[in-house]
């Protein structure tokens, strides 16, 4: 039987959810107007006052916030509460070069941990479980978020943080971890290490909660098979809280958004128009319960689709598709949009490991793209002919997927850095 952490919200009727969102949105707009001069100014520029926002049908009137706003307002410009009421900061990994600092009151931390607890319960977690949290702890939200959620569920929590694979595997086997939380690329690495050391029989894992990176369905199947677990996706961003903004259930057909805390919209990133349900576009979030860092209409740059189709798990929370990748991750090579997740899918389909790196460069005014892949014992052979044939097939498959030629380069094993926080998948030399 399906279990829920907060059934009354997770399975609420649409009417109940809309009523809750209306009430919370109106209160949040008032809170922001009164406490965040930066956003108040933006509203004033549009001739808006809190009285213009009577419910979610008025959401589209509000101005957007972007990462540029966060940078302009750094560090305190978007703070919604006096610092004496804040208890925590978290910060982004700065992969796009712009560090974001988000503030949390105790109330914010509590609600965030509830969101993570919902994700753990949806993955089958109970107080009987041993939950190994191998996301980084510290400024990165992954570790603290899942750690808090795991406590709330009552799991025995192993606060491993990332890295130190020997120690991870020792605790995993000695203490019988049943749930592992980490980035999908680290899960893949752990799976490889377990395989290499012949530890498969000694692990008790049943579920994994993997997020903070774009990953493909193929990678999910690969991890599930190697570890003998069910792999659940989790989504979040520091700007709104961290992991747990959305989470996957057993159906594995998208992630349920915790819409009692975050209202999701899909917009056309060019015209900024709100798109109807089922359209693909940029995901925008409005935090309706956060006090410390209350962002309204924050543009995530993630490209996805929302769906309200009935879910077999019983949750009524709207579902988002696994993002194609952040539009930050999207590369434009020779005028063609390329997502690292597309390349990953091709690699896995062709029997290559998911550990790869994409190098984009400009040679003689023309873009080049090179995919570095590690050689593995499975694809290696004594025959140069066989290896080059495999390379040729991979190049053709990439061309079919991307529409452009990508060079493939086979490199020594274990030379592409394994991620402990986020993998560095792309090196764009055009920007250096």
């Amino acid at each position, binding site marked *: 039987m399906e279990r829920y952490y907060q059934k009354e919200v997770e399975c609420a009727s649409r009417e109940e959810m809309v009523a809750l969102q209306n009430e919370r949105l109106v209160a949040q707009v008032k809170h922001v107007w009164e406490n965040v001069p930066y956003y108040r100014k933006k509203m004033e520029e549009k001739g808006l006052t809190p009285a213009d926002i009577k419910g979610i049908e008025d959401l589209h009137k509000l101005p957007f916030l972007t990462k540029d706003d966060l940078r302009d307002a750094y560090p305190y410009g978007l703070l919604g509460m006096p610092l004496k009421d804040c208890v925590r900061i978290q910060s982004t990994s700065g992969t796009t070069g712009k560090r974001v600092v988000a503030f949390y009151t105790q109330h914010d931390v509590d609600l965030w941990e509830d969101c993570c607890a919902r994700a753990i319960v949806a993955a089958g977690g109970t107080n009987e479980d041993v939950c190994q949290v191998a996301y980084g702890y510290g400024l990165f939200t992954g570790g603290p978020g899942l750690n808090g959620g795991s406590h709330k569920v009552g799991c025995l929590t192993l606060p491993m943080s990332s890295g130190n694979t020997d120690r991870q595997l020792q605790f995993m086997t000695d203490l019988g971890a049943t749930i592992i939380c980490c980035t999908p690329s680290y899960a893949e690495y752990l799976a490889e290490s377990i395989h290499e050391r012949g530890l498969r029989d000694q692990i008790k894992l049943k579920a994994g909660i993997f997020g903070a990176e774009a990953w493909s369905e193929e990678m999910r199947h690969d991890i599930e098979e190697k570890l003998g677990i069910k792999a659940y996706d989790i989504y979040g961003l520091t700007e709104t809280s961290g992991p747990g903004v959305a989470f996957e259930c057993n159906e594995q057909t998208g992630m349920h958004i915790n819409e009692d805390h975050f209202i999701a919209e899909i917009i056309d990133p060019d015209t900024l128009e709100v798109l109807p349900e089922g359209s693909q576009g940029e995901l925008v979030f409005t935090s309706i319960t956060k006090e410390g860092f209350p962002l309204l209409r924050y543009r995530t740059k993630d490209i996805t689709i929302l769906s309200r189709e009935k879910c077999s798990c019983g949750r009524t929370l709207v579902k988002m598709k696994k993002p194609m990748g952040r539009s930050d991750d999207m590369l434009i090579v020779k005028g063609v949009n390329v997502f690292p997740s597309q390349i990953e899918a091709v690699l896995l389909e062709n029997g290559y490991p998911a550990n790869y790196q994409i190098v984009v460069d400009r040679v003689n005014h023309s873009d080049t793209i090179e995919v570095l892949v590690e050689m593995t014992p499975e694809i*290696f052979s*004594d025959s*140069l002919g066989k290896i080059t044939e495999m390379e040729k097939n991979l190049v053709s498959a990439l061309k079919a997927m991307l529409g452009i030629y990508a060079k493939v380069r*086979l490199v020594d*094993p274990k030379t592409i850095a394994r991620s402990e926080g986020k993998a560095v998948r792309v090196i764009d030399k055009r920007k250096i």
Partner: protein
Amino acid sequence: MAINQITVFLENKAGALLNVTKLLSENKVDLRAINIAETTDYGLLRLITADNAAAEKVLKEENLIFTETPVLAVAIDDKPGALSNVLEILAKENIDVHYMYSIFGHQNGYAYMIMQLGETDKATALLKANSVVIAEPRDLQIG
């Protein structure tokens, strides 16, 4: 009898080959023959060693990718036409030579060629029937 050759994947970068030869020498693994097949990005380093077990242990520790392939060490009389003679025997029976390279120095009065022939057993029988000498591992101080 076939000899097991070790083939190692090496990315083309300065020092990659040195790294392997150094590791092997530090672990007292003697090399009997060495050959490289290369592309622009990587090479296949083919080794005949005196002690495969020791060599593979070192390679594994270094996280290098390698595989074992059976090859023949075919004795060639040290005179003009001797190699052609052997190749002719193989060609007549349609046995492909995938690649070959020579072994260091002359031993027992012969030059030895390492040959990868695909059909190792058939080739062994054929060459022996034609009085071509195939080295046993001990002839090359292997094992």
